[in-house]
């Protein structure tokens, strides 16, 4: 009975209890961690099961209905899936071009030079004020009236990037404005010229801020790129649409297209999440 400081004696203690018969903190901490892990696991399992029931149920119900032709997938699936590279190519080219448009657009929107500001503002206003589908068909079908004839692929990419560039312009402008004033002041105080301040100090930080937004827009772009099927670019939706109307199996064709877009979105979203996580963990704090 050496340590009987008001608590129960040594004999009555187990290793998980302290002198007062209370659980040891490290035991409690371990239990909290274990119970959190269990709860997290349970959540994920139920989540997956719910998806499985809903999606699986839908698939089974369709198969049972007898109104869906299962052989369609084998016959036309590869044809539709061959549109994936086209969709990705169009989206990638368009997002790269859109970023270039947005860079100039944002610099214009931040300019104190009235004509430059006016041109940039006109661009944003016009593009945001008209439907994307109108812009796409306009470039392909209306410009030839003035002798400007573009092939389907350049037309589609130009229209998509011109459109997304306008929305990204405003995001870039906000990104630049989000850089603390002290950054510009520090560069000015060093004696840097306006041009180098932008190029060396402000833009590199702004680009880090807007990178997630570019990722989001790229994901939206993969779906909006379906609209360029109107200028006969043979991407996923164009192929699905044609396969469907030729065979009078629109349901099957569109289901495949939808599944393809959905899967692409999930993959790109996961990549986007990882990119954001890596940026958050980096040493570079903006």
């Amino acid at each position: 009975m050496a340590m009987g400081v008001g608590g129960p004696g040594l004999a009555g203690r187990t290793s998980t209890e302290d002198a007062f018969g209370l659980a040891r903190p490290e035991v409690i901490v371990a239990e909290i961690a274990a119970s959190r892990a269990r709860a997290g696991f349970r959540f994920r399992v139920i989540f997956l099961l719910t998806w499985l029931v809903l999606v699986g149920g839908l698939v089974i119900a369709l198969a049972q209905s007898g109104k869906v032709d299962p052989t369609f997938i084998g016959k036309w699936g590869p044809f539709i899936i061959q549109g994936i590279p086209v969709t990705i190519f169009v989206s990638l080219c368009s997002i790269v071009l859109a970023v270039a448009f947005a860079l100039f657009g944002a610099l214009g929107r931040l300019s104190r030079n009235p004509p430059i500001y006016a041109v940039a503002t006109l661009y944003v206003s016009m593009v945001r004020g008209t439907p994307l589908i109108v812009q796409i068909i306009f470039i392909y079908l209306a410009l030839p009236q003035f002798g400007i004839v573009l092939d389907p692929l350049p037309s589609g990419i130009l229209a998509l990037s011109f459109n997304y560039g306008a929305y990204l312009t405003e995001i870039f402008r906000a990104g630049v404005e989000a850089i603390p004033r002290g950054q510009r002041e520090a560069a000015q105080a060093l004696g840097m010229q306006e041009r180098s301040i932008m190029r060396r100090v402000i833009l590199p930080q702004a680009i880090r801020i807007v990178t997630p937004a570019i990722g989001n827009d790229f994901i939206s772009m993969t779906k909006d790129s379906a609209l360029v099927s109107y200028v006969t670019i043979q991407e996923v939706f164009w192929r699905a649409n044609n396969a469907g109307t030729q065979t009078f199996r629109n349901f099957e064709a569109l289901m495949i297209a939808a599944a393809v877009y959905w899967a692409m979105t999930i993959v790109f979203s996961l990549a986007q999440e990882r990119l954001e996580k890596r940026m958050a963990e980096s040493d570079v704090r903006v």
Partner: protein
Amino acid sequence: MDQVTVSVDHHDPFATPGALTPTGARPIVRAVDLQKFYGANHVLKGVTLEVFPRETICLIGKSGSGKSTLLRCINFLEEPTVGFIEVDGLRVGADPLHARNRAHQEQIRQIRLRAQMVFQEFNLFPHMKVIDNLIEGPIRVKGQSRDQAIATAERYLAKVGLAEKRDEYPGRLSGGQKQRVAIARALTMEPKVLLFDEPTSALDPTLVGEVINVMEELAHEGATMIVVTHEMAFAREAADRVYFIEGGQFAEVGPPEQVIESPQDPRTREFLARTFGKAHVPG
């Protein structure tokens, strides 16, 4: 020379060269009859300040008294409304109506090369490593070669005791370390005068000392410094003259023994009493 006339007319009535200043020295920094309006708000009401080579000047006063505005007018981060600045013989007058004029901007840039500023919030470039923060100015602005700039930068980094942080990003440094890097960044530009805008106000109290030590060392080595600060211990230790600003004007100026130890002006006394708390018995 009209410079002489102006200097007689607007001579800083308080300017007496400090102990380190050789007699007959000419001021290296002059701010003459500076006035600053923000809209209708009269923030600086005509202050004249002369700083001689190797002097350390402290500007003290309540927040909103105009002390930071005065400092920021010296390197034109704020465009003064009236008055002129002269640094190492280059004079630039206030030109608020044509502040963005190209020639005026170029003159301002020349002033800034001579008067480097250390900010309260450090303002290091977070996307650049410490060493890149330090060589950016020398390479882009002074046109130094990369090797030359790195050599200079490493020397000053060692001077502030952070040689081993050369390849860190600012995000991984403590506030005190960030401010010491910022001081090194200003030093790499080898300016004629260093401007400090409340350099320890954003720091955790335990980190103030390391920054103050660097600043005191610089002061004792003969750097010319204008320091806006609340650190009375620093002012007492390092300043040749202390300027107490109240309502956009100098209320009291003199050596620290006078302004801090036995202030004459009741406004200075009140300010110091607040700063030191009740424990302080002036004089």
